[in-house]
């Protein structure tokens, strides 16, 4: 393995939109988006369970689509929109998914929770009335060792109803 001495490593810099806010960040170029978020931007809400794309714990939204941040290079994120769990709330309130997860036991140890929340958000943004099967499929890339998933499905369904409710009361 060849090693470049630290002094020779360049620093990468990107500008991107993180949770709705324009953000500049510098980092060592070999870092993944996961590492940049956690280590250079202090956004530790996004977790890691394997760093190889095998557990889903690092999921974030990249231009609205759920991706695994452990397999996205920081360098590739310039100009992109990234949403993490920290950015799910609006106007100082929790997202209906967050409320539902909290109320219905969908988070036990809470470690897989941020990834599942953003993935579920992407689902509901794109399909406001998913079936149980579609919910199940949308988080089939997120492993959970605590819940057995059922309370998670129910929380997504509850959030779905709440969002529909909110929409109809504002129209």
């Amino acid at each position, binding site marked *: 393995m060849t090693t470049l001495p630290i002094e020779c490593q360049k620093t990468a810099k990107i500008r991107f939109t993180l949770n709705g806010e324009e953000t500049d960040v510098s980092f060592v170029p070999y870092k993944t988006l996961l590492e940049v978020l956690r280590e250079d931007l202090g956004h530790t809400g996004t977790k890691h369970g394997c760093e190889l794309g095998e557990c889903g714990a690092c999921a974030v939204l990249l231009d609205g689509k759920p991706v695994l941040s452990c*397999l996205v290079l920081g360098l590739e994120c310039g100009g992109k929109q990234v949403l993490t769990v920290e950015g799910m709330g609006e106007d100082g309130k929790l997202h209906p998914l967050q409320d539902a997860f909290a109320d219905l036991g969908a988070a036990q140890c809470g470690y897989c929770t941020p990834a599942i929340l953003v993935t579920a958000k992407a689902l509901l943004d794109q399909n406001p009335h998913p079936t149980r099967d579609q919910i199940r499929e949308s988080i089939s890339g997120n492993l959970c060792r605590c819940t057995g998933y059922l309370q998670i499905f129910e929380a997504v369904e509850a959030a779905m109803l709440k969002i529909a409710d909110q929409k109809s009361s504002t129209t």
Partner: protein
Amino acid sequence: MMRLPLFEFRAPRTLEEAAHILDGERANAMPLAGGTDLLPNMKRRQQVPRTLISLRHIESLNRVVWRPSGSQLGACLTLSDIAVDPRFRNGLTALAQAASLVATPQIRNMATLGGNICLDTRCNYYDQSYEWRKSINFCLKKDGTTCWVAPGSAKCMAVSSTDTGPALMALGARVRLVSRTDEREVLLSDLYNNDGIDYIKRRPDEILSEVLLDSLHGWKSTYWKLRRRGSFDFPVLSVAAAARLSKENVVEDARIVIGSAACRPLAAIEAAKSMLGRPLNQQAIKEAAALAARIAKPLDNTDFDMTWRKRVTAEFVTYALRELRGDDVRAERESFTRYSFE
């Protein structure tokens, strides 16, 4: 945490520029598309390219062109793009099914068609961290001299694990390969090679830029994937089948491909031939399945006992052929996929 090694990063805007860089770097560089196979391999130090050439900024690689005579699919289309596109049906169903069954939803949002076609072969002894491989003194595929799957073998026996590969072969696909010096079109079947190390005849300076499909009007196709869980897992066996049937269900043309049973997807030529000119009835399906199963040579390089994988191959092929005939095999499919494919 596992960390990537150091690398240089280039982000060309055109295919010509990418080919130019690759020509200069040769074996020191690797193209990077979705990164869902390459980055884990880099973290495990299976592949440590000095330069990564990102293909994600090349417009032409994301295009889909539909014509009555066929279609051209850019190599950087994501598997999600293909899975949700309603145009990949009927004759092209196998491709949509294959794409929709790869890994997980998040990975499908990142992974590309070209990347999955060129997916590195896999093995219990190879897809491991650097430290693990050191403790077995490495293997023939990387840094070692023994193939631990078959210690007497002079050849690497890593297994082909692509899903889109078998599907596209069943659809008679061709691919375009572009380098600085030339451009060629190859039948996908001819691109794969039954060797765990030299599994794809793509030169290090070539970029797979497009998949070309002739019109499959009048065809039906299907893709079946066997794996332990409903997601994440690579195939331990797959069947891609395509056929053109007459109104009386007589087989006018057919292709069957067995995946993950060798170092490359295997065209079950005898099996397909046995179906021609016959109605696709119980007997024909049984014979074709038996012939297809004969060529499968699973080894102890992936999940599940290899004897079991061999024994279930014929049954698995019958599901695919029954589906082509028009049988309702949703229950069988869902027992493997755990959800319904719309």
